[in-house]
């Protein structure tokens, strides 16, 4: 395997421009929801709201104010964490989800049967069905670009280098330096997912945060679904059966969807 590659997202220089969201959609040819005709969400400047099958990047806006002009506005560009121990990969019944030579986690659309097991298994709520393809989709860390030596579209487009792409080992060093700098300025900065000894063996997309992970919608203790399975053998058998059933149902549903659309195939 080549060196592990990934993202370091420094939220302190994110300006919430959403260039990452657009660059991602453009490169991966993902559609806008409802063709772009939508209603205002009312949730600060966030109108796409979440990561799913057609939003592989999402910028979160968090307004923390005590009164007029008195507070801060946090922004964070979120994405698949490309976990070292990836729940989605573990539960995928068809082997559609693979670990690449860059230590990233990719769903192969042509192998996915749309069973949704990975959706339930992801502790970050990253994955969802892309309604166009009918398969589970998420960030590929621009696997196609990486293979020809290009950096992912989002980090390439990020004007302030809030999203940094590179070798994980080097990114960790850079991130620790930045944390030290911020701490010396009195900012309570901490890294999320940078520790290889931490949850899920570390995240290949990790973050510099200035508040609790929950504030950014990140679980403090992300867990693999199999963590519980190991505790209970019986339950794990039952779970396996359910997953298998889900896989069959999913496969049937996908075929039916394709038939009702008059063919199909991946987009």
């Amino acid at each position, binding site marked *: 395997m080549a060196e592990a590659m990934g993202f370091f997202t420094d939220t302190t220089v994110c*300006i919430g421009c959403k260039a990452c969201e657009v660059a991602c959609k453009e490169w991966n040819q993902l559609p806008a929801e409802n063709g*772009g005709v939508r*209603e*205002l969400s009312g949730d600060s400047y966030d109108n796409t709201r979440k990561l799913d099958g057609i939003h592989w990047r999402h910028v979160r806006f968090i307004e923390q104010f005590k*009164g*007029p002009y008195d507070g801060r*506005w946090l922004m964070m560009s979120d994405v698949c964490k490309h976990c070292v121990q990836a729940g989605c990969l573990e539960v995928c019944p068809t082997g559609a989800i693979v670990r690449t030579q860059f230590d990233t986690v990719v769903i192969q659309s042509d192998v996915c049967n749309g069973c949704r097991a990975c959706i339930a298994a992801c502790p970050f709520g990253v994955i969802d069905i892309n309604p166009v393809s009918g398969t589970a989709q998420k960030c590929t860390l621009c696997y196609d670009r990486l293979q020809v030596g290009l950096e992912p579209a989002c980090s390439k487009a990020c004007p*302030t280098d809030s999203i940094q792409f590179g070798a994980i080992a080097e990114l960790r060093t850079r991130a620790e330096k*930045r944390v030290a700098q911020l701490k010396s300025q009195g900012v309570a900065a901490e890294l999320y997912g940078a520790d290889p000894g931490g949850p899920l063996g570390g995240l290949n997309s990790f973050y510099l945060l200035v508040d609790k992970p929950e504030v950014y919608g990140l679980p403090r203790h992300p867990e693999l679904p199999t963590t519980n399975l190991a505790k209970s053998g019986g339950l794990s058998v039952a779970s396996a059966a359910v997953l298998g059933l889900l896989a069959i149902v999913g496969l049937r549903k996908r075929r039916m969807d394709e038939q009702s659309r008059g063919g199909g195939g991946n987009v």
Partner: protein
Amino acid sequence: MGSNMAECHPVAFRWPMKAKLNGAKLVHVDPRFTRTSAVADLHVPIRAGSDIAFLGGLINYVINSKRWNTDPFFKEFAVNYTNAATIISDDFKDTEELEGVFSGLVKFSEPAFWPYNGLEGRYDNATWQYKRGPRPAPARVEITRTTAAAGAITKDLIAKRAGPPFDDLVRSLKLGPAEKDPTLQNPHCVFQILKRHFARYTPEMVEQVCGSPKEKFIKVAEMLLESSGRDRSSAFAYAVAWTQHIGRPGAGVMALRGHAAIQGSTDVPTLYHSIHGYMNAPSALRPHETLRDYMAAETTPTSYYGNTPKFLVSYLKSMYGAAATTENDFGYDWHPKILGDHSHIASFAAMADGKVKGMCCVGQNPATSLNGGATRQALRQLDWLVVKDNWLTETATHWYLGPEVKKGEVKIEDIKTEIFFFPSTQIAEYDGSFTNTQRMLQWHSYAAKAPGDCRTDSWFYHNLAKRLKKAYAGSKLSRDQGWNNVSWDFDPDAGEEPLYPGEISARKVLREINGYQTADPKQHLKGFAELKDDGSTTCASWIYCGCYPAWDQNLTARREPDPPGVPGAHLKWGWAWPANRRVMYNRASADLKGNPWSERKRWIWWDPTFVNPPDPKTGKPVPKGKWVGYDVPDFGATKAPDAQPKPDGIGLDALSGTQPFIMRADGRGWLFVPAGLVDGPLPTHYEPHESPIQNPLYKQQTSPVHKVWAPGKPYNKLAVVGDPKFPYVISTYRLTEHYLAGAMSRWLPWLAELQPELFIELGKGLAQEKGIKNLDWLVVSSPRGHIRAKALVTDRIGVMQIAGKRIHHVGMPWHWGWMGLSTGDVVNDLTAWVGDPNVSIHEGKAFVCNVEKA
């Protein structure tokens, strides 16, 4: 300050963020807590329309600070590199003496032939001038040496049609030396005038006028002082020369332009009031009757602008080619002259009166522009309208989908306008150059061919010009001779394939802008120093001269960055005007002797040991010494720091080796502006036209020379001061997700979904008072109209204490209209035809409104 750089210039904002990583401090002063505030070290709220009070407060604080008065650097810089020490005319009266106006205010009467200047008053700036000694003795003209007689020399030269060369004419314009007091004690010196002028701008007054808490204001002032000095610099949009921020790396005035290539559109202008390279457009209202009259009126003899005749004649040669000769004053009489204010709002005010019959609207969407109702009413008076855009914009559809038509106030059958729509190419579908905010030209090649009949804007104007030339051919009318003689040769040369049928050659246009030897257009000019005033050089825009120094050498296409670890002037990346300089006036980065003010901040410096080659023209030896460094020096390259002005010199010869501001008549940065600004020599706080309060600083409420177009007309109603019907201050602005009037973003699904609908941002306090909940539909009204928008309730905007009153501030992005995927009411239906007198920019950032639940 007053800028939302992170949202409006996200790509350029890369650099403030890099600076932040290097330890820089970022302060954001704005009525809203925006995405810029989110990453700033300090956000200071300010009421829209009160920037000058805040900046005046900073000036007052800085010049009275211990730091400024004890660190010798500050005074050394101010005395030598600015006009702080210059004595102003005894007749000058400041706002301190005249209750808020300057001396020289006179009444303005609109001329009948073009009553669209929007002015009630104007300033005669005679009393704002420097106090001067007697005029220098003209060397070659024997005449009595008095001021009056010197004017007579100019008149005589004009009458005799002297020149080219025009050197004598330029020399005759020289004034006597300005009086100075380097101790800065003379009560009439600029420094003392300033000190008195800004004395009332105290932190307490800033708090009253701006609503900015005093503690926060003082913190900003202290931060500014901390990051100023020999070793430090700050980038600041105003008041720059006080803390010595001009002409030094990491410092200066960076105009944040509103559009990707808007810098280029003022350099090679689509502006009405200037011709290429910031020369004033010939005007029927100024002494511009003949070529020499224009030169006499427009040439500053003792700055680089002393070369204006060379710029002008080379420009005229580009306009009229072989038809421009010495005998016909290079075709000057064919050149159009302006009649007054033809800026955006003025033109629409005239259109509303039926004075403008037709309009080519190319890549612009005025139907959603300032005072939308009035603008659309103006559009309906046109005989014909051409809209050239990517989509059917609001301007193309106002006649059947505009709010007036939908409401039944206007009937389609009553609109006589014939409207033509031309589909347009996108930026990636043609070749050309961008000029960015750093004055840098970057060539781009097309990435894809446009579909169908989409054509470039240059295709449109190129083919229109060719047809117009044909239409005027053979006319004997003198007014048509401009068209008959204009030189128009932009078809691709044989062998060059046009991008689209009938398309222009973009390279040929840039070559024409760069300029060449008239006798051989293949011999390009290498820089504006080669320009001549006798017609032997042709150059459309002198400031761009050198970007294409040889027929096959397009420097704007270069993409070679500096390696890491060097200061990074990136001189081989694109090309920046003037002369590929990246920091203008960079002589100021060195001290009087030519040494860097600090090693950390070195940029260019004097190397006294440099061995110069002999002068290529005369073959004479050149003494040792040269300006060297990271950038192209913005100074005479071999002019020593101890060089003295030549008594008879014009242009740079009239300046010494310590006068860095070579485009100014005295080579110094102007803290006091004797000419060029029409609303006063010093910044002064006036209230916006529509304001909730009386001006706390002066009896004078608004600028006495600000513009109100179509005053008293029913379509430009204005609120009175403190109007109870419109109690809230409103600012309009942009979002990152959309672009201007929306033609490039509201039709694009990926952008439309990011900001799908119009909204109004209002504070929680106001929402509570009015029972408004997040996402409620609201009606927002001004004296011009009312619109609907959804509420976005937030603490990022809110209430302020202004002059003892509790005033709510609200804000609305203005990108929307009724076409496209993301739609909403036209926010500009609220704004007024009110503007500033210098550049006629509207007051849509600071006016008043009311907000009610729908």
